[in-house]
């Protein structure tokens, strides 16, 4: 792993500095010189895995033979440069390496990509650079290399502390491997390590799972993600459940696990800042926060998603973009055109507002009046939701709050948010359409 001299030192310094930083607790970051339209988060997708987990339906591939890392790296760099140019983004606020299994990539790729970003836009010294890591049997050394390359936050896909469950999920590691990786990660990136834990697995019982969670609390850092298993058609686990080889997960039990789990974490000092994400001492994920606040983000790599206004190409409307899914095809397109954007869909104003609503309510702070105003200066939250009988009903049931801070879910409401949205979204549509076509003014 060879890095060009001065850049390397700069990156290493940035990495070390970032390791010592903490994120402020939920309040908007200090305004930067660049307007919101010139800022974005950057997501980079590494599509390869050693093995496909039985529940996974992400855009991932098991490589046949050796991965041509150099070629993939070249394409990632090219696409990153192209999209930075197309978007006109001047400041990248967070970088996230997801996948696949990004920890299978070489740290050199991470460093090279960060280098390319630094050349095309401003990358703040303390920028959050997250890497998703798979617990393996040789953690320490590799993670340190990633640290040197510029990574300053780690997300470990632990999933379970029960070896049988890990086997059912098709994971390549044991619970012990995971705890070792976690310990090594905490040494390298203190306060910047996140772990994923799943619940609602087939055959899982409430008591034993809570024991797992408590055990995890003894080892984990300041960030935890709790994910309910969702059986997706086309996955091996789905097929096993259908055939009856594996019991069907009980949704009632999963709901109970969620309720108990989040209460347990709250008692342990964690702030549930999003439906599935918990942090203490302010260790939120800046990158993911961008999604829920409907900030711009660039998606680089096969199947990556992006949402940004292509200022650099003269555009004015935010577009939802997705890059070509299949790595080989994606590489061909990047080589030919500089990027492998498969689909671009412009989002109209209403669609953007709907996203602001649906994403914002996933967080504990919800949608503040100021936040809403950035997207819709003319209609405020009271205008949209204040008069609705149904919304009032939800407030009376203690699920929703609409006050001088803004609109947000209560503790109970967060668990049934998708149900609440079915009342809120039509209300938003009505209010928005009414505003667009005002009733005819009587003549005179």
């Amino acid at each position, binding site marked *: 792993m060879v890095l060009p001299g001065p850049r390397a030192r700069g990156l290493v310094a940035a990495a070390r500095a970032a390791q010592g930083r903490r994120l402020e607790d939920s309040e908007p970051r200090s305004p930067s010189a660049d307007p919101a339209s010139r800022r974005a988060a950057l997501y980079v997708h590494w599509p390869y895995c050693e093995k496909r987990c039985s529940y996974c339906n992400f855009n991932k591939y098991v490589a046949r033979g050796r991965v041509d890392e150099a070629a993939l790296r070249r394409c990632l760099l090219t696409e990153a440069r192209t999209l930075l140019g197309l978007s006109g983004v001047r400041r990248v606020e967070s970088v996230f390496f997801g996948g696949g299994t990004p920890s299978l990539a070489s740290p050199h790729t991470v460093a090279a990509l960060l280098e390319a970003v630094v050349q095309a836009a401003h990358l703040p010294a303390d920028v959050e650079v997250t890497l998703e890591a798979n617990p393996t049997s040789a953690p320490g050394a590799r993670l340190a290399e990633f640290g040197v390359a510029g990574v300053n936050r780690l997300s470990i896909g632990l999933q379970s502390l029960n070896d049988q469950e890990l086997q059912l999920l098709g994971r390549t590691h044991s619970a012990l491997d995971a705890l070792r990786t976690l310990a090594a990660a905490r040494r390298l990136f203190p306060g910047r390590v996140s772990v994923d834990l799943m619940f609602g697995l087939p055959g899982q019982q409430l008591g034993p799972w809570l024991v797992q969670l408590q055990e995890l609390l003894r080892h984990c850092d300041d960030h935890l993600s709790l994910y309910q298993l969702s059986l997706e058609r086309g996955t091996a686990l789905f097929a096993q459940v259908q055939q009856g080889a594996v019991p069907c997960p009980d949704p*009632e039990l999963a709901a109970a696990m969620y309720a108990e789990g989040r209460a347990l974490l709250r008692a342990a000092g964690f702030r549930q800042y999003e439906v599935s994400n918990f942090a203490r001492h302010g260790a939120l994920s800046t990158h993911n926060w961008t*999604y829920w606040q409907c900030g711009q*983000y660039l998606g680089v790599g096969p199947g990556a*998603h*992006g949402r940004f206004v292509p200022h650099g190409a003269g555009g004015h409307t935010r577009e939802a973009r997705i890059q070509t899914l299949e790595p080989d095809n994606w590489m061909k397109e990047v080589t030919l055109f500089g990027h492998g954007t498969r689909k671009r869909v412009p989002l109209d104003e209403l669609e953007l507002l*709907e996203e602001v609503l649906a994403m914002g309510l996933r967080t504990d702070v919800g949608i503040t009046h100021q936040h809403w105003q950035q997207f819709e200066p003319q209609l405020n939250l009271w205008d949209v939701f204040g008069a609705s009988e149904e919304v009032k009903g939800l407030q009376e049931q203690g699920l929703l709050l609409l006050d001088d801070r803004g609109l947000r879910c209560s503790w109970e409401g967060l668990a049934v948010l998708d149900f609440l949205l079915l009342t809120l979204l039509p209300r938003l549509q009505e209010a928005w359409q009414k505003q667009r076509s005002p009733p005819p003014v009587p003549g005179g």
Partner: protein
Amino acid sequence: MHRKNPLRALVFDSTFDQYRGVIANVALFDGVVSKGDKIVSAHTQKRYEVNEVGVLNPNEQPTLKLYAGQVGYLIAGMRDVTEAQIGDTLYLHNHPVEPLPGFKSAKPMVFAGMYPIDQSEYNNLKSAIEKLTLNDSSVTVHRDSSLALGAGWRLGFLGLLHMEVFNQRLEQEYNTSVILTTPTVPYKAVLSSAKLIKEYREKEITIINPAQFPDKSKVAEYLEPVVLGTIITPSEYTGKIMALCQARRAVQKHLMFIDQNRVMLKYLFPLSEIVVDFYDSLKSLSSGYASFDYEDAGYQTADLIKMDILLNGNTVEELATVVHKEKAYSIGKTICERLKDSLPRQLFEIAIQAAIGSKIIARETVKAYRKNVLAKCYGGDITRKMKLLKRQAEGKKKLRKIGNIEVPKDAFIKVLKTI
């Protein structure tokens, strides 16, 4: 059989041609027929002039005459297939003859209510049914209506298979999907309340709609239509058939051995018990050997009650049914179970109850949602999630609200449909 005898032609099939009218397929038993002859239908006694005769090769090939012993077709200016009934006899108008044996109008054995999935499809379905029955005169058609499903029909078929084929043809050839339901049976009530008698202007009223069901206190007696059914079966199935009839509230009227191996049974059946699957059950039980025929036998007193369906205490008008007291529990339970499976969960518990008056006879519960939120919602998930949410919100608009419970249209369908 002689061509010199007066004309006797048996109609064994008929098709409808848009331009030429009804084309009757005939077999000549006696006589000769040619263009210009004036013929009469034994069944309808209507007179026609023959426009064309011919043979089928298999295409139509017109000829000058058709002779006794030949099989061919005949066009005589009939505009409706019911004018050329299968089994009918045609003869020359000035030479009436004894009708050929074997003419009996097809008696429907299986009935079903047929409704369009959406009332906007009503006209399409209407014309589709009309076209299909043009060439299948064994299907009987009556208008009907339901609170939940709107305007539709009550159709009679020769058997369950006939009904299935008809349904499939509707879907494939006319691209119309329908809802099949257990058909309504015309119950009657003899009123005892002077006020109601004045209102309805007669003492005995027919109840088509459960909403019209008058209360027990105002009624001297309830009546249900009955039929006298005749079953002829090989003797080895007698026991099973008798059990089947008993399960259908039938009363045995007669049992006798026709010969060494065959038994004839006569039972008085409530019409409501045989309209759907009695015939097919009978056939299954007897490996196809039993035969069934029935005739109208008027009305008999019956212990009828109106069964209401309640959701969290709110009555669902569309699902009220009039049933016999004996069958109330099993029907009530089935409806509750079907509703449980088709009602979406809400933020609160839903109690589904079947009730007779104020007495609850069956109950099911739909549990409340404790968790309903997408676990992962990051960059790549947002598009899909928004699409799903918007689609669900659209669907919610079409839901009927009963109390504060949202009921999808297809919940009604699932409850009311047969099987």
